[in-house]
């Protein structure tokens, strides 16, 4: 592997190749973009390109340094990821990193530290990292990998160069699913569409059979009555087998996909409503049902529903109770759809 395997990130690739050529690498970067589009892969390839013994601007993948970066055993390369069963980077991990960064590099001119999920740090951990970002050693390159800049402290953000990663193209995801994971073309097409340019997400969706579950969900949407809110959320839990999962992390992951399905459905309705049928939609096709449903809702209502869903996603990231969250979101959506006709005394 080398930069050749990096796809759909031409702008970022060119930027770093120039930076390596001109010896203008910064001390700290934030790689921002949705999950599963190759940010960590790129940062590893970048480290290999910098440490490679045979090539100046790319990795040869043949030398001992490249092999050791691949195996995470190169002494001047540190990949920090959240510990098992944890979603956040702990302060102890950052303290260790801080300690090791101030020791001069062992085998090369640089020391590269990659911090995955750097947007999931508490304030204490952020402050610990800030100290290193304020006075980085000359040889240090720190790469923070985040999905959203909103969750990164302003003080940390202002000390890093921000590099935005684009979602992968639909064709790239589809071809990968067909060639690498032997999925059939139809399923690969659907997964590529709903994964929103994230290969990792497409793969996890394939594992959890989300396409089938999403189709069930859409069929249910048409039948929903105003007072179905609580029964529907219970049905959702059963049909999506959320309770069968072992860990809370897995449950949250699946609930997130569920909420994404809501988001995609109402997004499609909004597109249909504004009448721009050329914009790609997540639905298989523009059928009568979706058109008639969109006619019954105003643009304002749809925007409010989308906003409700977006807020629910935010609450999910802040560890809200998943049962209450789903019930609350469905109740709010139905309230908006039906013009607040839900009786509080059900």
């Amino acid at each position, binding site marked *: 592997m080398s930069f050749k395997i990096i796809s759909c990130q031409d702008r970022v690739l060119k930027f770093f190749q120039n930076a390596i050529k001109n010896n203008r690498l910064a001390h700290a970067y934030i790689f921002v973009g949705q999950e599963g589009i190759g940010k960590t892969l790129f940062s590893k390839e970048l480290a290999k390109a910098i440490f490679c013994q045979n090539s100046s601007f790319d990795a040869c993948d043949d030398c001992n340094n490249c092999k050791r970066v691949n*195996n995470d055993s190169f002494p001047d390369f540190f990949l920090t990821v959240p510990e098992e069963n944890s979603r956040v980077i702990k302060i102890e991990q950052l303290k260790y990193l*801080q*300690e090791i960064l101030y020791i001069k590099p062992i085998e090369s001119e640089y020391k590269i530290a990659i911090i995955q999920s750097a947007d999931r740090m508490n304030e204490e951990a952020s402050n610990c990292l800030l100290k290193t970002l304020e006075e980085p050693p000359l040889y240090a390159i720190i790469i923070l990998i985040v999905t959203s800049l909103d969750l990164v402290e302003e003080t940390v953000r202002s000390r890093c160069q921000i590099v935005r990663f684009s979602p992968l193209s639909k064709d790239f995801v589809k071809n990968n699913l067909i060639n690498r994971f032997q999925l059939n073309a139809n399923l690969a097409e659907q997964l590529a569409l709903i994964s929103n340019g994230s290969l990792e997400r497409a793969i996890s969706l394939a594992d959890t059979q989300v396409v089938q579950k999403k189709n069930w969900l859409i069929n249910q949407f048409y039948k929903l009555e105003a007072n179905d809110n609580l029964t529907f959320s219970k049905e959702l839990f059963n049909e999506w087998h959320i309770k069968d999962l072992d860990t809370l992390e897995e449950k949250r992951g699946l609930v997130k996909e569920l909420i994404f399905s809501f988001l995609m459905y109402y997004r499609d309705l909004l597109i249909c409503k504004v009448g721009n049928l050329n914009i790609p939609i997540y639905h298989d096709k523009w059928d009568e049902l979706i058109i008639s449903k969109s006619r019954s809702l105003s643009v304002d209502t749809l925007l409010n529903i989308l906003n409700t869903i977006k807020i629910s996603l935010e609450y999910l990231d802040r560890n809200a109770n998943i049962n209450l969250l789903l019930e609350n979101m469905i109740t709010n959506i139905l309230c908006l759809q039906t013009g607040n006709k839900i009786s509080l005394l059900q």
Partner: protein
Amino acid sequence: MNIKLTGIDFHKGLSLLAGIVPSVAIKSVLQGIKFEFKDKKIELSATDLEVFVRYYIEAKEVSGESKGLVLHASRLCNIARDWAGSDEILISVSEGNCVLKSKGGYFKLKSDDVEQFPSVRADGVSGYIAVDGDILSNMISKVLYAVSTIKARSVLCGVLLWVEEDALVLVAADGNRMSIVRRKILNPDKIKINGIATAKCLSFIQKFSAEEKGVLKFGLSESQLHVIGSKGEVISQLIDGQYPKYEEVIPKESDKKIEVNKEALLVAIRMASYMTNEGYRVVRFRLKKNGLNLSSRAADVGEAEQDVDVNYEGPDFEISFNPDYVIDALKASDVGNVVIELGRKDSAAIFRTGHEQINIIMPIESE
């Protein structure tokens, strides 16, 4: 490949290197010890990415060739400990595996990939200075306790190693105290050394010198400290940064000077410290004619007073210190009497605790 060696050599080498193998390694390969075979020597290497140690064991007999092994350190140390009394251990190395045989049985161990293990060589050292291992170890013990444990202040997490002309100076400080020790050395080539070594490395050098028993040669490159002994070498990465100018911290105007018996002061301050608590570690020093009174008081604990005889003729004077800092300095002293030099109530005090060994301790405002 087959190697024969004695149990005690095997045990000694491994137990020294085990001290550097990290218990929880960020990189799994570091939990191993690397074996390489050169002539009739076995070269053992271990590292925690901060300190790299290479140690040689003499083999009794070697036959065949091998590119090396990386074996899990803690398992290997357990085996070596139990076979320490064995006259002969046979190591047979085959493709990625190793069999250890001695009387009573054998162990078959799987090797990690040798290529993955960091290979560190000392690079760019301009010159080496020879110093007796015991002297270096003793100097380290006189400063190591003052090293800062606050990781955010990286340069203070190490010890300044400074050589100019014919003197070696070690300095450690944590912001509230500083410890300096200086010794004459032979430096015919006028080699200059100035770098910050990690506390972990110096602590390991103490163990290394105890094992080596003799002269150690040490030198600095831009990024490494290199210590060579007769049976091995230690390479340690230096801490990046500029050490504060320590000479400027040493008070120049200390008009009160007392000489006090070290043991008596140590006992008195330790007893006074019993009446302090975690949040308020303060012992007040009251100097009066021919006497030093130490007192402590904590609201939820109680109070204590201790008197120590001193020769003092000056005016009455009061100053307070964290007792832990004074105890650490006195414990590291190997002389009978220590000299305390005091200036103002709010300026640092000098504790001269041995030959060319001084401790600067900042006072605490007690009221």
